[in-house]
């Protein structure tokens, strides 16, 4: 039986691990290769690196981090942040990553998803979606608005936000797109997996957004990774059982040692969830 995956995410800035609370207030907390190695020993099923600076200067630093990690650990490695071109994807994959995660770049140009899928296979292409609940139900959906720069996404296919809106640029910029519509469209363009972060829940430790998760997992036929909000062991279980997530991702609860990954797995196994122990 296919196991549910537990994935620690490491935010990396200039070659160092940090974790943003609600995407701000960064705290420096360690070497990415050592952290990845530590998580491997703890039973992580996969590692995600998110390059949160992604300035041109730091590109080479990140490639070096990816390479040294791939040389050290024998787990699937996903890298996101600042990937803009097929060449960017190739550089990351050729340095040992198994998947690349596209967020803003996919919204700016969905062809990137297709081109990456054709070149490297859909299994290499993760589309990361940062979604935020529309403040008042129906508020933004009264009329479609096209945010400048995002004309390449067909609004007639994706739709204006109904309950959740896609945000880009690290959660700062509303896209004008519906999160469920965008997820479906991204999969139709070649996304092999969706990494779904709730902006409302991220950093709150109050649980994953089960409603959002359920809406996306019902509509797409690729694996969905739940992200944002893990604070208790039960939260992981809810994301899998109620939200139907294929994998659960967390950062701070692992990074600051609130839970060991194995603790989460033992808890889930006790509840009858298939996990790799």
């Amino acid at each position, binding site marked *: *039986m*296919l*196991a549910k*995956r537990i994935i620690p995410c490491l935010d990396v800035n200039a070659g160092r691990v940090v974790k943003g609370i609600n995407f701000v207030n960064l705290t420096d907390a360690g070497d990415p290769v050592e952290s990845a190695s530590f998580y*491997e020993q703890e039973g992580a*099923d996969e590692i995600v690196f998110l390059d949160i600076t992604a300035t041109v200067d730091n590109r080479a630093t990140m490639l070096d981090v990816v*390479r040294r990690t*791939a*040389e050290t650990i*024998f*787990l*699937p490695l996903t890298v996101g942040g600042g990937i803009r071109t097929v060449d960017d994807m190739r550089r990351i*994959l*050729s*340095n*040992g990553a*198994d998947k690349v995660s596209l967020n803003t770049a996919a919204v700016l140009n969905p062809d990137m998803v297709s081109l990456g899928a054709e070149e490297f*296979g*859909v*299994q290499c292409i993760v589309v990361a979606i940062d979604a935020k609940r529309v403040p008042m139900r129906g508020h933004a959906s009264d009329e479609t608005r096209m945010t400048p720069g995002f004309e390449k996404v067909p609004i007639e296919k994706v739709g204006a936000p109904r309950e959740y809106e896609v945000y880009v640029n690290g959660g700062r910029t509303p896209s004008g797109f519906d999160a469920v519509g965008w997820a479906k469209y991204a999969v139709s363009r070649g996304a*092999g*997996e969706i990494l779904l972060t709730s902006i409302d829940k991220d950093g709150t430790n109050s649980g994953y957004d089960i409603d959002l998760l359920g809406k996306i997992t019902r509509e797409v*036929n*690729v*694996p969905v990774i739940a992200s944002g909000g893990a604070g208790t062991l039960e939260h992981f279980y809810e994301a899998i059982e109620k939200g139907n997530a*294929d*994998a659960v991702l967390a950062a701070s609860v692992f990074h600051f040692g609130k839970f060991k990954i194995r603790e989460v797995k033992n808890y889930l196994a006790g509840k009858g969830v298939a996990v*790799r122990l």
Partner: protein
Amino acid sequence: MRASKVTVVDYRTSNLLSITKALQRVGAEVELTQKADDIAKSDRLVLPGVGAFGAAMRNIDSLGIREALVAYGRSGRPLMGICLGMQVLFSVSFEQGTYHGLALLPGEVVAFREDTGMKVPHMGWNQIMFRKKSRLFEGVRDGEYAYFVHSYYVKPDEDCMAGATDYGVVFPAVVESGNTFGIQFHPEKSQSFGLKILENFLSV
């Protein structure tokens, strides 16, 4: 430990960093090659690979190594095909057309059916259930998890299935025939279990 030499065939289908590092981790001295001569001289060969079957066979042909690979496989020296490298050991694949493989093992490569309700590709950690004794399983527990990424699987004509995995359909995760082995999962991404399989291959 004395280093075992392993020749890894680079037929331009995959990044070889991880498999090279994993083999080195378990004590192998790794040589990468694209040449028929090196394949002919090798004592232990690994055929990795990701991507499409047709493209893989085209690359094998454009490098002019098809005959060398077939001759190597028939010689009885240890050979391990990984993922797509396992699939090309078989006779024929129906991935986006009909393509002939190396035919070292009889059987065909077919797609997972989407109507089983399972997501395709089969991606993630799944269990290897022992079907028969294999030298690759020395010191390994029945039911361990390995990391898979694939949309096609092999249907062997002969009973060469050493390990099976259930994903809507029960398919061969490990095949063994003489000294020819095929593994559908990625040992280089399957943590200590994967490393143990590679280490066992070095002792074949």
